[in-house]
């Protein structure tokens, strides 16, 4: 095993006043506990010189309303990415994260109002939603030989969320 990409994740839009312990645990499990366990297994199984890339989210830094748990989970994922990079560097394994902004996926369309999606598209410099291929290209960049010196980085893939 040379390459591990962590793309699992999901979110909901609870108000702070509506948070429940079970709801928090569910979203933390999906976005952070899974990522930490994948990092553990990567540390055990990825061959020397391998690559690990995790999908974070712009939510980790832009603090969108009604995404407190998701934002916290992704911020934790980014911290874990940096720790893992330090631990695995002696074996030549790089660990990086990609931080997409709003990306035009079926899940986004299913969970988000059209009005909110339009606002998301206007929020970045490119004035459009990202596409899955936009993000996949950035992930793939971390797997190239030219990226061998990059580890512990979190790279924005947001179309310029400035």
């Amino acid at each position, binding site marked *: 095993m040379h390459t591990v*990409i*962590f793309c699992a994740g999901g979110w909901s839009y609870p108000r702070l006043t509506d948070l429940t312990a079970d709801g928090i645990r569910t979203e933390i499990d*999906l976005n952070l506990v899974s990522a930490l366990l994948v990092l553990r*297994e990567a540390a055990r199984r990825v*061959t020397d010189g391998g690559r690990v890339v995790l999908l974070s989210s712009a939510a980790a830094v832009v603090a969108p309303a009604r995404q407190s748990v998701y934002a916290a989970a992704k911020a934790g994922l980014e911290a874990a990415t940096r720790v893992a990079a330090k631990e695995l560097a002696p074996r030549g394994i790089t660990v990086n994260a990609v931080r997409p902004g709003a990306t035009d996926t079926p899940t986004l369309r299913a969970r988000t109002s059209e009005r909110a999606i339009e606002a998301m598209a206007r929020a970045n410099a490119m004035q459009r939603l990202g596409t899955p291929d936009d993000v996949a290209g950035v992930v*793939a960049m971390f797997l190239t030989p030219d990226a061998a010196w990059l580890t512990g980085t979190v790279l924005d893939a947001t179309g310029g969320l400035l």
Partner: protein
Amino acid sequence: MSSSALVIGGGGGIGAAVCRRLSSDQHVVLTYLEHRERALSLAEQLTTSTRTAEAVRVMPPERLTPRAPLQALSAWVRCTR
């Protein structure tokens, strides 16, 4: 094809795009939770005479429990090549 790539969440929109991107030079194992049909279809599309891919279901489709992420790791046993 010299190595394998494990894509956790390969059935989702971004995950599927990552799988397509990687499949040209790595054997791809993609895991899925909610997007069964999409994941199986993708693995089939990515498998040709010169490249291979497989989809692995990692946990039941009901809501996650605190222990559920542990089940995701079962996919690793499929990635030992």
